[in-house]
């Protein structure tokens, strides 16, 4: 009888204790959390990348025509397949009327010279305009005028003098470009005139483009010559889901299939409508990638295929933690007073099993990894000994605070 009572009493006691533990919501009972694995956060550049393929294509085709009224065709200077640069001779013809042609060229030269003059004047005037002096006047920056081609252009000035300085510089750069173009035109016209005057009747027509001669029409039908520009770009296709993520301007890394070198580019144009719109068919959207000007495209011609890596989003120097440590939007952070704390975090990009953490974590923080053990908020954490992390040196007597830990081991209950 007595034994029965004792047994019952014991079970009751344990039962009550267990219930008390179970219903403890205010954390009156100190708890500990056993953590087997954890990770330390660190900084890394993360990016979300879309991988797809593309094919190199020529940016454009240009046509060159021959005006029969100017003269009679003499000969082609190029053949199909020739690689030419701008300025190379394409074909020659004999002028019908020498004087007429001469006059035409002379007046063209004069016009170009005039154009050059006015551009140079505009440049000088702009250079002389001192932005800082304008802004230091008591009256606010007022719009001023520049004369170009005898047309007064009102130049609207922006609010700040920095912006004004920038605009000035931009304007000058544009004008310098125009100027050099005009000079090229001048040279061309002068050369033609020269040739006409020396040969007495022949004019050579030069190519205005770099590229490859695609077709030469021997029967003199228009267009006479088509030139395919060597500027290459890459064409690709996107699925519906991919299309939603890609916008113009995203950086792209282009790698010729089979090669190692990577060419930098940018998404130039993303198709607004798919190739075919049908309910039962997948919508495929075309897109093009423009290559950076300085890039070396030697040896690559139209039709070669490439692997593309489009960087959708990038975060440099982001604080990251491995995926296994992040649970939806919270992490279990191991704090500086030895406790576990459930922290809500703002996550960002994901890459290669690693997630960017936008808030709440600095590099060097510890976070506990997923496990079947229960993690409790505000519980002191304990971890098992990881022998493979021990090194000879760390355990060395003079190195670690061995005494301290030894004594802790000794006097803990």
């Amino acid at each position, binding site marked *: 009888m007595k034994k029965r009572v004792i047994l019952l009493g014991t079970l009751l006691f344990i039962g009550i204790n267990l219930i008390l533990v179970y219903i403890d919501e205010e954390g009156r009972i100190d708890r*500990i959390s056993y953590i087997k694995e954890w990770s330390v956060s660190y900084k890394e550049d993360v990016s979300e990348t879309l991988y797809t393929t593309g094919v190199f294509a020529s940016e454009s085709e240009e046509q060159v025509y021959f005006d029969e009224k100017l003269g009679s065709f003499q000969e082609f200077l190029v053949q199909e397949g020739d690689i030419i640069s701008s300025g190379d001779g394409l074909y020659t013809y004999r002028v019908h009327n020498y004087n007429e042609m001469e006059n035409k060229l002379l007046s063209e030269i004069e016009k170009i010279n005039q154009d050059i003059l006015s551009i140079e004047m505009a440049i000088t005037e702009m250079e002389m305009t001192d932005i800082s002096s304008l802004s230091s006047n008591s009256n606010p920056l007022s719009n001023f005028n520049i004369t170009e081609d005898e047309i007064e252009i009102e130049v609207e000035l922006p609010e700040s003098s920095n912006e004004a300085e920038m605009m000035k510089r931009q304007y000058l750069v544009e004008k310098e470009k125009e100027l050099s173009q005009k000079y090229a035109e001048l040279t061309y016209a002068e050369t033609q005139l020269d040739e006409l005057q020396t040969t007495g009747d022949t004019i050579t027509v030069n190519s205005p483009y770099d590229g490859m001669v695609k077709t030469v029409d021997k029967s003199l039908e228009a267009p006479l010559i088509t030139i395919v520009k060597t500027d290459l770009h890459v064409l690709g296709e996107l699925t519906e889901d991919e299309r939603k993520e890609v916008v113009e301007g995203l950086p792209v890394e282009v790698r010729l299939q089979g090669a190692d070198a990577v060419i930098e580019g940018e998404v130039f144009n993303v198709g607004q409508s798919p190739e075919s719109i049908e309910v039962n068919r997948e919508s495929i959207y075309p897109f093009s990638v423009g290559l950076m000007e300085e890039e070396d495209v030697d040896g690559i011609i139209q039709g070669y295929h490439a692997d593309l890596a489009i960087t959708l989003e990038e975060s440099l120097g982001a604080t990251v933690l491995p995926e296994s440590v992040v649970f939806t939007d919270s992490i279990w952070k191991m704090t500086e007073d030895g406790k576990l704390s459930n922290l809500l975090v703002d996550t960002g990009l994901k890459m290669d099993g690693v997630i960017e953490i936008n808030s709440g974590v600095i590099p060097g923080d510890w976070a506990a990894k997923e496990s079947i053990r229960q993690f409790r908020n505000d519980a002191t954490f304990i*971890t098992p000994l990881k022998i493979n992390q021990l090194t000879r040196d760390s355990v060395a007597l003079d190195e670690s605070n061995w005494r*301290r830990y030894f004594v802790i081991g000794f006097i803990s209950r």
Partner: protein
Amino acid sequence: MTYYTNPIHFFRSSEDHLIRIGKAEELKNQWKVSIILILVTVLIYGWMAYLGMGTNLISEQATTLSQEEYEASKFWFMLGRALFGFLFALLILFVPSLLFHLLTDIPFQKILIMQQVVLVALLTERMIWIPLALLTGLDWYVSPLSFGVIASYLTETLWIIAFFGSISLFQLWIIWFQATFLISLSDTKKYVVWINVILLQMVGWCFAALLAFADSYLISGWFN
């Protein structure tokens, strides 16, 4: 008659064993059993430390240490724990035996048997603490087998909780066991035995509470 010490068998038929111990003139196996028990104690404490139990104080500094330093600290902790286990076993086996021997007149050796059984009970209690800590997150002083849970509800003072946390079902059983053992083997008055047994245990509880409460202060005091 000769009695072969075997603490484990004792649990099965205690009355029978008690009678035999009382009558025995010669006791064998004492040293062997004692040494085995000491070794087992060291192993159990070492293993508990390996799992990280009791490293609460170290966890406080964990994030300031490098990974290697942290592991090294736990390594030394384990060694300290093993030493503790060794001394603990010696303490439990021999000190009460001596005291009770002086109190009653039972031969020291026989009381040693009693303490061996006590040690086995204590080790069993510690083994239970392992899943308790690892799986349910309860430290020793809030084990559901002790009064620590109730104490946690009634107060926040750590040393009170630790004191009551030391009073567990195992401890109560040990009191009963020691009293029964001593009474059946000696002529000392019952109430004297009971008072002394309980007193001794209470000293043990106070000491445990003291350690639990003061360890962080001691460490910072000594080393800072």
